[in-house]
């Protein structure tokens, strides 16, 4: 298998996520990404509107550095590791997305309907991205963690709250994909 040029299978990607978590533990940190949103709001002066943002954000700068690293990592993978290939999507998903009006699902890395440059002139796509982002920001702060904090760091430490949160992820995600997608798309 050519790990530089081909997509990674789950049994490579999963343990590599663990490696990242372990490396952070070894330098005295803990993998949890969405705390960065709170930090960014705090830096922007949000403590004027809520005590929730009255935090010592300087103690969180390490996580912002991690964030900057992820952007660089995405750039490196995209430009030097041939990542922007088609996604080998399951036939059932391709069919359902085609029925919703998506063109050639999986033939590119991302659907151009939501991630292409045409989005800037498409009000409904802008609203979808803005709303989706807001739900993610609100929900991850409400649950005190996101996929990295709960699904990886919390679950690996056998935290019941993390399991409850993941059940919530799926209640929301399944409702969205099965019941709300047909109303939004197509």
């Amino acid at each position: 298998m050519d790990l530089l040029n081909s997509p990674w299978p789950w049994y490579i990607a999963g343990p590599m996520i663990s490696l990242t978590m372990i490396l952070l533990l070894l330098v005295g940190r803990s993998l949890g990404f969405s705390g960065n949103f709170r930090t960014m709001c705090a830096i922007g002066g949000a403590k004027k509107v809520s005590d929730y943002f009255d935090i010592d954000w300087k103690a969180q700068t390490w996580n912002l550095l991690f964030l900057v690293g992820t952007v660089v990592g995405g750039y490196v993978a995209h430009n030097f590791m041939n990542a922007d290939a088609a996604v080998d999507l399951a036939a059932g998903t391709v069919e359902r997305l085609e029925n919703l009006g998506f063109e050639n699902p999986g033939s590119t890395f991302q659907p151009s309907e939501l991630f292409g440059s045409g989005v800037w002139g498409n009000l409904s796509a802008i609203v979808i991205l803005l709303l989706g982002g807001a739900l993610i920001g609100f929900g991850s702060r409400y649950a005190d963690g996101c996929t990295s904090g709960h699904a990886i760091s919390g679950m690996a430490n056998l935290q019941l709250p993390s399991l409850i949160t993941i059940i919530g992820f799926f209640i929301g995600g399944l409702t969205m994909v099965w019941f709300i997608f047909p109303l939004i798309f197509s």
Partner: protein
Amino acid sequence: MKQISVLLFGILFGIVLTKGEIISWYRIIEMFHFDSFHMFGTIFSAIAVSAIFIALSKRFKWTALDGGHLRFANYPKGWKKYIFGGTIFGFGWALIGACPAPLFILIGNGYFPILIAIVGALLGTLLYGILEKRLPR
């Protein structure tokens, strides 16, 4: 030195989630269709390997490199905020096919419309901060 290392770990994370296609909208939708093992295998194996490391480090009292404690994720007991917050998050995760780290990794990948979702995430965080004390938890 410690700061540089965290930056490098971030680069690693960005590469892993890109190469593993975790940042692809299609993969997230496929997961919620239960059509492929890819996302489940990735998450389960990540949890399993991490859990084994944590169990061993507790058993053998491993420390961080500077001798300090390993900071495992501990969440306060409760269920309301986790199930409500998780569900709200799930709606967003499925809608735009990206969770918080991928929002930023996608910038590196050149999908700049994701900046709109990042603005949304900051607005959502701000709204949470304002409503925090009135929400069930």
